C-alpha cells in the first residue's frame, strides 16, 4: 500500500511558524516540500496559529506607534542618520524585558527580533550625510512589519484545514495520557478523531518535547496516535503503510489493557466507531 493512501500528517503550530533554530527551520521546510500534499492542519491549530500571529502583529504595531515615536522624541531624534542605530538597542531591549511576563512569547521574540534587525540594517545603509525623517522611518518599519506578517501567515494558508470539533470524550482520553496544555489537547484530539472517523493513519508532527513528545509512548499505546518530529515523519508514514488500518489495528489488540478498553469505549460513544 502506498504512503499516500494510508497515512496523513497533522501538523502542530510549531511546524508552521518560525523556528528559532536554523536547523529546525530547514527540517520543516524540507519536510513540507516532501510531504506537503499529505499534510493537514486541524481547525484548532489554524485558529490558534492565526490568533498568535494577529496578536503579535497588533502588539508590535502598537509598540512602534505608541512607544517608539515618543522614545525617539525623548532622545531628541526627529531625523535619523547612519550613526543612530544604537538608539534602537534600548528600545528593543525594553520590549524584550516586557516579553518576559508573557505566557507564550516565542512569536513575539521572533517578530521583535526581525523588526530590530531590519531597523538596524536600514539605519546602517543610510548614506553618510543623509538624514531620514523619523516619521518616514517608522512608516517604513510598519510596512516591513506587515510584510513579515504576510509571509509568516503564508504557510498556514498552504496547508488544507480540516474542520474538526474534537469530542469531549476524546479530549478526556488525551488528558489521561498526560497532556495538559489545553491547546495541545484540542490539536491531538482532532488528529485522533480524524484518524478513526476516516480509518486512515495520522502522524502528528511536532517539535514540542515538553508537552507532547514526552507522552509519545502513551499516546501511541492507548490512542494509537503516532507523534514525532519532522525528521522521522516520513519513516513513520512508511512503516504505518505496512500496517492494517487504524480500526483493524485496534480491533486486533488482544488482550486490551484497561486504558485501551476505556479509550475504545470513548471512541465508540463519541464517534460511533467500534474498535473494541
Amino acid at each position: 500500500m502506498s504512503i499516500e493512501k494510508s497515512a496523513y500528517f497533522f501538523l502542530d503550530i510549531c511546524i508552521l511558524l518560525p523556528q528559532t533554530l536554523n536547523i529546525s527551520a530547514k527540517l520543516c521546510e524540507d519536510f513540507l516540500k516532501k510531504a506537503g500534499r499529505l499534510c493537514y492542519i486541524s481547525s484548532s491549530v489554524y485558529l490558534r496559529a492565526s490568533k498568535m500571529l494577529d496578536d503579535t502583529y497588533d502588539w508590535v504595531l502598537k509598540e512602534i506607534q505608541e512607544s517608539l515615536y515618543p522614545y525617539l522624541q525623548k532622545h531628541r531624534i526627529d531625523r535619523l542618520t547612519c550613526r543612530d542605530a544604537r538608539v534602537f538597542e534600548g528600545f528593543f531591549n525594553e520590549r524584550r524585558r516586557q516579553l518576559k511576563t508573557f505566557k507564550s512569547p516565542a512569536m513575539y521574540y521572533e517578530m521583535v527580533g526581525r523588526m530590530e534587525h531590519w531597523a538596524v540594517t536600514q539605519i546602517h545603509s543610510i548614506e553618510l550625510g543623509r538624514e531620514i525623517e523619523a516619521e518616514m522611518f517608522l512608516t517604513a518599519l510598519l510596512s516591513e512589519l506587515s510584510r513579515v506578517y504576510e509571509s509568516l501567515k503564508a504557510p498556514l494558508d498552504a496547508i488544507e484545514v480540516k474542520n474538526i470539533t474534537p469530542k469531549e470524550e476524546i479530549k478526556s482520553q488525551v488528558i489521561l495520557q498526560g497532556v495538559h496544555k489545553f491547546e495541545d489537547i484540542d490539536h491531538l484530539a482532532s488528529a485522533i478523531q480524524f484518524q478513526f472517523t476516516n480509518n486512515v493513519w495520522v502522524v502528528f508532527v511536532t517539535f514540542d518535547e515538553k508537552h507532547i513528545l514526552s507522552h509519545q509512548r502513551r499516546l501511541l499505546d492507548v490512542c494509537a496516535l503516532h507523534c514525532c518530529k519532522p525528521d522521522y515523519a516520513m519513516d513513520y508514514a512508511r512503516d504505518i503503510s505496512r500496517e492494517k488500518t487504524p480500526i483493524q489495528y485496534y480491533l486486533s489488540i488482544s488482550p486490551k489493557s484497561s486504558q485501551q478498553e476505556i479509550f475504545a469505549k470513548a471512541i465508540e460513544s463519541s464517534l460511533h466507531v467500534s474498535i473494541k
Partner: protein
Amino acid sequence: MGVLSMLPSNLGVISAEKIFRNDVFKPVSLGFLTQKPDIQIEETDIASVVEDNIRILDSIRLPSHFDRETLANFLERIIKEDLEKDPLHKQSAELNKYAKDFRNHMRQYFDRIFDFHEKLKGDISKYVFATSNIFLKSDFPPSFARTLTFSLLTECRFIDIYDLTIRREHLALITNYNDLKKFKRLCDAHNRWVEPFDSAINKIIETRIGLIWYADFTHSKTLEEIFKPKAFKKSLLDEEYFFGMLVDLQRQTDQFRRALTTLSKETFAISPSREDPTVDMLCSIMETMGS
C-alpha cells in the same frame, strides 16, 4: 545602497489607494478573437473605470455633509485626471488591446505583461506604505493596518502566482502556435482559471477602496480635503459599520488566499528569502518613486 537612502524627502507624495482601476485581472481575453484591436480603447476604458468607481461610491455610507451626486462628479473629475497621468493605465489599455487580438500580438503581450506587473506591485507597495502612514498618525486599531496591508500584499502574491502560471502557459502557447485548435483550447483554459480569481480580487479591491473612501470622506469637511493627508480619528466613524467592512475585507482575503493555494502551494509553503531583493517591498516602493 540601502532602501532608506532612496526614500522621498516629502511624505506628501505618498497617497493611499483611491481609485479602482480594474485594469489588471480581468480575464485577459486570451480567447481566440479575430476582430481588429479597438483603437478607442483608452476612452472607453476611462468611462468604464468611472462607472466602476461610482458603483463603489453607491455601496458605501456617506457623511451627511456630502451629497452623493456632488461626490460622484468630484470622483469622475479626479479619476479622469489621475488616469490621464497614469502610465500604468496606458500600459494596461495596451495590454488589453493585445489580448483582444491575442494570436497576432502574443509576442508583444508577453514582452510587456511582466514589466507591467512589476510596476503594479510597486504601486501596491506604495499603498502599503501609505496605509502604514495613515495608521501611524491615527488612533485606529491595529486591525485596520493588518487587514488592509494583508489584503494588499495578498494581491502582490496573486500577481507573482499569476506570472508563474502564464510563464508556463506561454511555453505551451508557443509550442502550439500553429495548431489553431490546441491554441484556442489553451486560451480557453487560461480564461477559465482566471475568471473566478478576477472577480474575487476585484471584489476585494472594491471593498478596500470603499473602506478607505468611507474613512476619508468622513474626515473631510470639504471636497478639497478629500484624499489629502490627515489625522484619522476613530470617534468620527460609525465603528460598527467601519469594523463590519474590515471583517468583510478580512474574510474575502482569507477566502482568496485559500483559493490561491490551489494554484500554487509551493509559493505559499515557503516564505520568501530575506536576502532576495525582489521581495523587498520597500525597495520596490522606492524604485517606483524614483522613476
